[in-house]
């Protein structure tokens, strides 16, 4: 079967004070239809940047400089980075030069039909990701309205309340009338999940959605992702530095460090300690009291 998303040799470069640095260096992965892929890695491993690159949200210079991202929407395969080579040139000394304005216009054109219904995202700071001046209900309604433009106002409100119920808000009506600052981080994240899923996306990218939440709330949010993703049959990329969350949600895991993919394995193999593990993965497994299995000698 055709994968929903195929990323090959993705390279992202940022300008820093010490010159250009490759923060994502030749990353490749694929997400199948209805599959959940986990991306595991420490801070600065390039996992968030990779997902932002897939979403077309990187506007720093030079940003995405190479690779291929193919997204399947309906029967079409859309190459998201097509024409990148006309915007980027690599100088003889290795520095990348990019016409970022032209590139951003291109990204906007390619991504507009994909954002929302094709792929969407839930980020790690839910409160900042909600409009501070709009009630939660109105924000969910906006999303519902985009997914189903023909609904009347009453139907939209009912749909929004249903979504708040689906993300297990204890008192949907109160949340509906609340502003983001009146809710806890966990409730904001639930609202974000409702907003994202109300568009019925084919791929949900969850970028460390539980960071900054209490342990109990984290468990609830992870369980919520589990049930909602199974219900909607969407694909998901779940990014986290918590190996337990990733193993719980994902069927396949890639481990990233310093912008590179170190290892790719199924969750089952990781949990049961089958196969040979990269030393870094072994450290992560060991830290979580999981069997490390055989550790490869060569790095």
């Amino acid at each position: 079967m055709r994968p929903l998303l195929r990323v090959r040799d993705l390279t992202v470069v940022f300008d820093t004070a010490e010159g250009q640095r490759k923060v994502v260096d030749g990353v490749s992965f694929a997400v199948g239809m209805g599959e959940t892929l986990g991306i595991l890695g420490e801070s600065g491993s390039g996992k968030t940047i990779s997902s932002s690159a897939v979403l077309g949200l990187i506007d720093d210079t030079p940003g995405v400089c190479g690779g291929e991202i193919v997204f399947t929407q309906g029967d079409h395969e859309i190459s998201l980075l097509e024409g990148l080579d006309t915007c980027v040139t690599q100088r003889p000394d290795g520095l990348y030069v990019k016409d970022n304005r032209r590139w951003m216009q291109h990204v906007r054109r390619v991504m507009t039909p994909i954002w929302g219904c094709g792929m969407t995202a839930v980020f790690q700071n839910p409160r900042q990701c909600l409009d501070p001046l709009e009630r939660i209900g109105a924000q969910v309604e906006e999303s519902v309205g985009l997914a189903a433009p023909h609904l009347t106002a009453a139907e939209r409100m009912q749909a929004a309340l249903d979504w708040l119920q689906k993300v297990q808000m204890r008192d949907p009506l109160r949340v509906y009338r609340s502003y983001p600052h009146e809710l806890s981080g966990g409730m904001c994240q639930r609202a974000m999940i409702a907003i994202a899923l109300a568009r019925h996306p084919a791929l949900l990218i969850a970028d460390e959605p539980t960071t900054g939440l209490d342990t109990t709330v984290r468990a609830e949010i992870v369980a919520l992702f589990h049930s909602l993703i199974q219900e909607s049959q969407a694909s998901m990329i779940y990014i986290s530095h918590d190996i337990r969350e990733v193993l719980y949600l994902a069927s396949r895991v890639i481990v990233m460090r310093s912008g590179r993919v170190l290892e790719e394995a199924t969750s089952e193999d990781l949990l049961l300690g089958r196969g040979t593990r990269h030393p870094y993965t072994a450290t992560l497994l060991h830290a979580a009291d999981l069997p490390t299995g055989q550790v490869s000698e060569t790095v």
Partner: protein
Amino acid sequence: MGGDHPSQECKAPSTPGSKKLRSLPLGLYLSGGIVALVFLLGLIAPLIPYDPAAAVDYQRQLAGPSWSHLLGCDGQGRDIALRIVKGTEAFFWPGILAMTIAVIGGAACGACAGYMRGWVGQAVRGLMQLLDTLPRLVFIVLLCTILDPGMYLIATTAGVLFIPTIAAICRRKVETLASEDYILAHIAHGFHPAWILGYHILWLQCRPLLIRQACTVFSYVLFVETALSYLGDYGVQEPWPSWGNMVAQTREGVGFWPWFVPAVMIVVSIAALLAFGNAIARREEAMR
């Protein structure tokens, strides 16, 4: 954050409720009342029949306030109260026009200048800078000497001349908010840039600022109208009343009520408009 704070869901200290009721906005009600009165007069004035020739009655020249003439009569025996009401016609609709032009034009230009990075944004920014260099009153008087003077020309010009001020405010907002997480999240969720810009930034974020500016523009039109009518050449001409040309009767040097009433109306209206804009904006900001 430990177990001592059982309900994180409770309101944080910076919730709107605490700020909202701290000061019952007396200033808001007072200025709002005056602004409402002026707007009401502006709305009903065209409905009142007025024949400038028939209004003249030398029998009651410079009569003081009485029950039949609440604010007295002027040097030609015309009822001052009626002329005050009719005088609002001179600036009301022009003021509304200027307000609309300035707010819609300013918001649109500000959004363009802040959002578009290409030559369109460059051109808008340049145009705004150019417009901003024009001294408002001088330019209005200049246009009046070249073209056929009239309140609608003055109002349109005033509206256009206020566009750069409003555009600058909106542009700053757009630029600071563009990198906010929630704007990025809205993009990722598939909302159209025009919707994000028009609703989330201009309507939700800039509304208080726009209300304040709208009141400023309206009061400016009132000021220019009365100033030009007072000076005489380009404003409302006698025998038609305007607050400005009513004050100008002082130059004839007689009576107290004929100049006092319109002068008070001008000062109080402008002050109330500015205060009202400020109070509304501050209240909206405090509710956040």
